[in-house]
């Protein structure tokens, strides 16, 4: 890549015309705060997501305490809780509803999506396609800087009369649309809608940027099918975001107006309520609009991690990905199907049962591309030379937990089975197996894998493994028993299961889950400790510590603004490990050399004037 290309982004912005790498004359707040460098933005996303991970986690632990020990005071911190939360250390039912709403909303909108799409999208895309920065760096900066205000707005619900939003992260009206408050009152619910609207905007800005970058800024010689699966997954995710998020925005705008201006998009006639409103609306409409975005959103939360896990697994198995193109098509297939299955969240909602049939069949079809992915990951391990690094362990956890989460998904995809398990802890178990067991383990894998390139230091492997071990064990201790709670009929979002006779036998399981959850929460301190400790005292990272093939490892140890210190030309696909006829067992994409493909094998040949297809 020529120097002029490298400078393009910064020159256009600052009007400077100096050599790449000489950006230390930028004021500090342009370098570390309002930076347009994709790597800095990525780190910002990482920090804010880590912060919110602990906020959301703390909310979850309150919930767990109440379920395991209903009516008992929370130890240690119980006495210092504000009066609107708890009396004598026992949290109130109203606050419990706020807790579960905030836990879900924060984990989804401020942890998983910013981690998966914001952090990895920003870090990986430009580096892995061998370019200096995003196509639209300023837009990129704004996509991050909408997140902290949005977070603060959501948390500001605490200061309103009614407290935080309390209608669940799904915020189904009429509960979320008529709070009994006067017109123009700011409530937790209105703040919630504004906040989610803003993060949605942040997502859209990021996504437009990713699509533009992937299509326009790939290094010389890089065809679409030379891109690593991480980039493919993020690219397809970005397309989902641009198509789905505006629909959510429309739904949120209507919900906001119902709350704030007392319109009636979602409020039917003759509600028995104190609020004044017009009526004539339709509550189920919101569910359609909401899930039209929010089902694709679950793929927004998992597809990028599927890509990351594929890269990590190829590198540490020292093997090409089994069925690279099938993997790409499976991601695209899941993304497409994601848009025609939203009704499976609404089997019992009062939607016409005829539609239940349609949505059940389309949902079950998703199991097919998902199993293709799992089989291809197993195929990647086959005849590999597997190194159990922290990144690899987390990637393997992703695959195995995704199998469990996928299988439990088949239960609720089957509409008649869903009659019983809908809105029970079985669903809660499922969502945590895919979003924690899947997404979060994938995120950990990505952090362990790319940390050396992000900070120029290696993460501590011993503590990495300890973190993995404790997380994996306590994760299963926390979430597996939830399946049993669900089969026992334990409804989700209830404050006190002891009210019901048929749930009396489940107290022990609720306690187990809570103990697991507390241990799981504290295990995450190891990760934070490791990240902070290694930043200062970690071993210096070499340029290509994992001996991987993709372009980010061609960049310097700790790349500055502009990323690369050499011209990048791509000669082959991203997964050429163990190529016959080569000394090294890896063959980076940027290294010159010719090869031929014989029976699905790549063989290096001496003639370096011609390059044959490497796939």
């Amino acid at each position, binding site marked *: 890549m020529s120097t002029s290309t490298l400078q393009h982004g910064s020159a256009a912005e600052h009007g400077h015309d100096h050599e790449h790498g000489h950006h230390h004359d930028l004021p500090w707040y342009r370098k570390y705060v309002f930076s347009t460098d994709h790597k800095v933005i990525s780190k910002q996303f990482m920090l804010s997501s880590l912060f919110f991970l602990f906020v959301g986690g703390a909310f979850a632990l309150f919930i767990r305490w109440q379920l395991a020990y209903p009516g008992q005071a929370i130890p240690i911190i119980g006495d210092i809780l504000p009066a609107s939360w708890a009396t004598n250390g026992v949290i109130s039912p109203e606050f419990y509803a706020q807790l579960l709403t905030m836990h879900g909303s924060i984990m989804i909108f401020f942890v998983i999506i910013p981690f998966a799409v914001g952090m990895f999208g920003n870090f990986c895309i430009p580096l892995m396609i061998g370019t200096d920065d995003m196509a639209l760096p300023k837009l990129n900066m704004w996509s991050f800087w909408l997140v902290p205000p949005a977070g603060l707005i959501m948390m500001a619900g605490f200061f309103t009369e009614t407290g935080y939003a309390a209608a669940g992260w799904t915020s189904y009206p009429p509960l979320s649309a008529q709070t009994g408050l006067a017109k123009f009152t700011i409530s937790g619910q209105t703040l919630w809608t504004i906040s989610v609207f803003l993060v949605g905007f942040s997502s859209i800005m990021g996504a437009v940027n990713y699509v533009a970058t992937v299509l326009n800024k790939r290094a010389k010689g890089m065809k679409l099918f030379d891109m690593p699966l991480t980039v493919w997954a993020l690219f397809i995710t970005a397309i989902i975001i641009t198509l789905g998020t505006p629909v959510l925005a429309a739904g949120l705008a209507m919900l906001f107006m119902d709350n704030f201006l007392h319109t009636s998009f979602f409020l039917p006639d003759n509600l028995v309520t104190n609020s004044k409103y017009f009526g004539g609306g339709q509550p189920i409409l919101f569910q359609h609009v909401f899930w039209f975005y929010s089902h694709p959103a679950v793929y927004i939360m998992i597809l990028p991690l599927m890509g990351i896990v594929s890269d990590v697994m190829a590198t540490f198995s020292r093997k090409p990905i089994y069925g690279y193109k099938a993997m790409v098509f499976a991601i695209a297939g899941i993304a497409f199907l994601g848009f025609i299955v939203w009704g499976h969240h609404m089997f019992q909602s009062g939607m016409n049962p005829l539609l239940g049939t349609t949505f059940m069949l389309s949902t079950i079809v998703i199991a097919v591309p998902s199993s293709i992915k799992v089989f291809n990951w*197993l195929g990647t391990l086959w005849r590999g030379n597997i190194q159990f690094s922290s990144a690899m362990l987390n990637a393997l956890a992703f695959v195995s937990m995704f199998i469990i989460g996928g299988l439990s998904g088949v239960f609720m995809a089957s509409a008649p089975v869903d009659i019983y398990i809908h809105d029970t802890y079985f669903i809660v178990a499922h969502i945590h197996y895919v979003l924690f067991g899947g997404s979060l383990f994938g995120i950990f894998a990505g952090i362990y894998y790319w940390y050396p390139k992000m900070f120029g230091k290696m993460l501590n492997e011993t503590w990495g493994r300890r973190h993995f071990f404790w997380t994996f064990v306590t994760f299963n201790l926390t979430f597996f028993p939830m399946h049993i709670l669900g089969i026992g009929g334990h409804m989700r979002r209830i404050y006190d299961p002891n009210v019901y006779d048929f749930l009396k036998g489940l107290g022990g399981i609720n306690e187990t889950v809570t103990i697991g959850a507390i241990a799981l929460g504290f295990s995450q301190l190891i990760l934070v400790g490791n990240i902070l400790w290694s930043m200062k005292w970690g071993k210096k990272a070499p340029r290509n510590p994992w001996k991987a093939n993709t372009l980010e490892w061609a960049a310097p140890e700790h790349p500055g603004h502009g990323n690369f210190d050499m011209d990048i030309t791509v000669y082959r696909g991203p997964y050429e490990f163990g190529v016959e006829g080569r000394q090294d067992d890896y063959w980076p994409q940027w290294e010159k050399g010719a090869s031929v493909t014989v029976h699905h094998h790549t063989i290096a040949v001496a003639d370096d004037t011609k390059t044959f297809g490497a796939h």
Partner: protein
Amino acid sequence: MDGFFSVFDMLAWFPENISTFGQELDNLFAIIYWVSVAIFFLTFGVLGYLLVKYRYSPDRRGYNYHGNSVVEITWTVLPTLLFAAIGLYSDDIWERTKYSSKVPTADVEILVLGKQYGWVFLYPGADGTFGRNAHNDRTARSLMSATNPFGRDTADPAGFDDVMTENQFVVPVNANVVMRGSSLDVLHSFFLPHARVKQDVIPGLWMTIWYNLFKTGKYELACAELCGGGHYGMRAEYEVMSRTDYDKWLDARNAEVNAARTPQPAPTATTDTAAVASLR
């Protein structure tokens, strides 16, 4: 220790089933469960084998192999067939339990309303027909209020004997019960765990809920849709009664209704309890 191992027998944790279609739903759950268990052990077995067999060794290198179309098509087609079979079988059951065309002729018809935080029920009473109310006449919806949740028209003689109950209801055993459910305020979900029944009820719409219970006894109704702070306490009890007990219960309610009513021309044949019972 027994308790510990029971964790692995997930199917044993279901509450006892008491409805006719419930067994079918449980069986379907069991089928998917055993298929899942098989797939789980298969994939985890393969995964464990690969991880041990191909663990790192410095004298080996990974095998450069990009995949095989025959293998990949096989492992695409097999899950497709398996999942298509599950889907089609599920749909068959779904149609029979939920399609409105498959709702059986009602032996007993009850209206139910969810409200923050409780349930109210309306029986047609001695004459076997409901008076004008928010269910059978849209215009009566404007009468709905906290004190008159069903929007009953007090001027309609057919409604004089309608029986309303709060947070409890009774149904006869081995009878097709058809309920029409709605809500006064926010979404609620009518959940009978033992009967394997769940249906959201929505303000402004009436949902059909039907079941046929084969075992007498007292059971619980829960709300399964977050409806506010008091959601957890939205519990009601119901009793499945033998036909004789049910008729007795109805007659007792009928007597109460008559006693409570201001002197009005009595509805037809209130004293003939035998005839009343046979109407249902």
